[in-house]
């Protein structure tokens, strides 16, 4: 199994662990991640305004690059996944955007949404299979009580993201079970952490992060996992509660369970 891989800028800097452990784990699971060449930053937010074209171009370049390789495009960072998946959907369904983007990019052949965008977790669930993952685990994380924090970007809008039930997702919980730990289900696992507002006003993410972590702790979680560097940052740096649980990327635990850490 080989995927075209789009790491994204945060994974090259602040979120190296997210990337590193994803790569070694994939290798151990027989999945090849071929990083696409010359990728550019996805823009980190999906431009909701219908007349934004320029901000969608880099995502289309990445998508087209995977199309040329004839492979699915694998993402890891929630923001990158969100942006690329939604831009791809625009290219598939919105005639106006498709025309303008192609007019601008002047690719050899028009890009019309052919590439399938897959998140690392979807790859684990659908291609590897959680049962196979469980069988590959060398170091089951027995006794660990882990709360999954999904955030917003992977789940919503569900019609486009098609990731999981947006209000009652199970993919991370199934992942937690597969690596031998016990999932702790929290009500705020799909509530926003405060997002990019952190740059403007730390008070909002602080309130949100505390609320999310307090619930996880109250339900007995010792660890909170996420797939998003911004979520991790807000939960870790901007929360102020005392008995903070361990907060890490899901790939770190994956690598740990596979005996690669």
């Amino acid at each position, binding site marked *: 199994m080989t995927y075209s891989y789009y790491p994204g800028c945060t994974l090259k800097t602040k979120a190296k662990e997210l990337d590193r452990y994803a790569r070694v784990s994939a290798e151990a699971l027989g999945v090849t991640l071929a990083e696409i060449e010359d990728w550019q930053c996805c823009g980190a937010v999906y431009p909701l305004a219908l007349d934004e074209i320029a901000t969608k171009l880099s995502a289309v370049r990445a998508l087209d690059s995977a199309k040329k390789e004839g492979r699915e495009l694998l993402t890891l960072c929630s923001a990158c996944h969100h942006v690329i998946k939604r831009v791809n959907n625009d290219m598939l369904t919105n005639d106006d955007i498709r025309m303008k983007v192609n007019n601008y990019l002047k690719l050899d052949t028009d890009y019309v949404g052919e590439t399938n965008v897959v998140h690392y977790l979807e790859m684990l669930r659908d291609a590897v299979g959680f049962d196979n993952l469980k069988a590959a685990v060398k170091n089951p994380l027995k006794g660990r009580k882990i709360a999954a924090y999904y955030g917003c970007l992977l789940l919503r809008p569900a019609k486009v993201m098609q990731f999981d039930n947006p209000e009652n997702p199970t993919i991370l919980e199934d992942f937690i079970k597969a690596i031998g730990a016990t999932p702790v289900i929290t009500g705020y696992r799909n509530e*926003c952490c405060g*997002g990019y*507002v952190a740059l*403007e006003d730390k008070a909002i993410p602080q309130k949100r992060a505390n609320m999310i972590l307090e619930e996880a702790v109250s339900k007995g979680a010792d660890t909170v996992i996420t797939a998003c*560097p911004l979520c991790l*940052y807000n939960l870790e740096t901007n929360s102020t509660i005392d008995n903070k649980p361990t907060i890490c990327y899901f790939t770190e635990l994956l690598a740990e369970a596979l005996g690669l850490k």
Partner: protein
Amino acid sequence: MTVNEKELAERVIRISGVNTKKCMKCGKCSGTCPSFEEMEYHPHQFVSMVEKGQIKKLMESKSIWTCLSCFACIERCPRSVEPAKLIEAVRVCVIRQQGENHLKANAVPEKLDENMPQQAIVSAFRKYSK
């Protein structure tokens, strides 16, 4: 509504692609919004104010900078009105004005801390400036 505001309202509708007439005023968006308390005008008000053409008030409101773009109101809206798209459109109308970038580049360094990921900076730039 002045002519200028009417144009603005049309622009907001066009940029957002939202049909405000589909709103049945159930208030689920405002029941959902995680940033409700930080907002002067709440998501359901955005819909009715755009409908009424009161764009300037919205443009001047701090509400547009506190929307987290979490898409919860988009996800849960039973009428596919999706207020976050309106908030984004109003925000776009503001930052596309000359000299109205909400976030100025030279103001960034002081806001940074050592753990802040690129993603936060890039997305904030995208949200706050043109």
